[in-house]
C-alpha cells in the first residue's frame, strides 16, 4: 500500500469540509451586485474561503504521504456531499440520474482504494 489510510482519511475529511465551502460560495455569489461592497462585506464568501482553507490544511497534510493519483480523485467524495447540500440548502431536485452518478463516484473511489491496496 503506497498511500497510507491516514492520508486517505485526511483527504476525504478535507473534501467533505470543502464541499460545504462550495455551498457558501454559491449563496455568496447570489448576493453579489454591481457595488464593490457586495463582495467585501459578503460574509458567505468569507466563510466559504475560510472553509476551503481548513479543507486545504487537511488535504496538504494528507499529501505529505502517498500518491497524487490516488489522493486527488478521492476529492470526488465532495460531489456526493454537494448533492446532499444542494438538496438541503438550494432545494435542487435529487433525480435518479444524480443518484446514479453519485453511486458511480462511490464505486470509483472504492476501486481506487483497491488499486492502492494492490500495489
Amino acid at each position, binding site marked *: 500500500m503506497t498511500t497510507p489510510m491516514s492520508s486517505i482519511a485526511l483527504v476525504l475529511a478535507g473534501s467533505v469540509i470543502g464541499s460545504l465551502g462550495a455551498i457558501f*460560495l454559491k449563496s455568496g*455569489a447570489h448576493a453579489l451586485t454591481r457595488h464593490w461592497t457586495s463582495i467585501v462585506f459578503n460574509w458567505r464568501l468569507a466563510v466559504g474561503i475560510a472553509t476551503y482553507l481548513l479543507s486545504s490544511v487537511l488535504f*496538504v497534510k494528507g499529501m505529505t504521504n502517498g500518491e*497524487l493519483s490516488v489522493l486527488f*480523485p478521492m476529492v*470526488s467524495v465532495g460531489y456526493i456531499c454537494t448533492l446532499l447540500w444542494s438538496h438541503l440548502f438550494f432545494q435542487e431536485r435529487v*433525480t435518479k440520474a444524480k443518484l446514479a452518478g453519485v453511486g458511480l463516484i462511490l464505486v470509483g473511489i472504492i476501486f481506487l482504494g483497491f488499486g492502492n491496496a494492490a500495489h
Partner: protein
Amino acid sequence: MSSVTALPEVHVVTPENRRRAVFIVLACTLIIPAAQYLIKLGANQLAAQQHSAHTGSVSIQATILGIFTNPSIFSGYCLYAIFTVLFVYALRHGELSILYPLISLAYVWVAIIGAVAFHEAMNPLKLTGIAIIMAGVTVLGRGSAK
C-alpha cells in the same frame, strides 16, 4: 454587459451566460493539474524536511506553516485563488449542479502528472476507479441539466 441590473437577487441563466460559464470552468480544469503538481511537490518537500528532523509525520502546525512558507505549495494555492475567483464568476451565470461536474476533466491531467512527474505506478484498478469517477460525474452532470 448584462441587462440584469435592477434586480440583483434575480439571476436569469440565459444560454449565452451558461455557455460563458461553461467556458470559464473548462479553463479552470487546466489550472487544477498545475496547482496539484505544485502542492504535491511542496508536500513532498515538507515530508522530506520532517524526515531529516526525525520527528515523524508532518504535524498540522507544520502543514499550516508550509502552506504559507513553502514556495511550491504557496504558488499552488495562488493558482487555486485564481481558480476560485473564476469559479465564483461562473457560478453567477450557471448552476452549481452543471458546472461542478465539468471540473472532472482535471482527473485525467492529474493522473498523467502523477505518473510522469512523480513516477506513480498505474494499475488497472486505479485507472478503472478514475474512469468510473469520471463516468459518475458525467452522469451527475447530465442528470442535473434536465
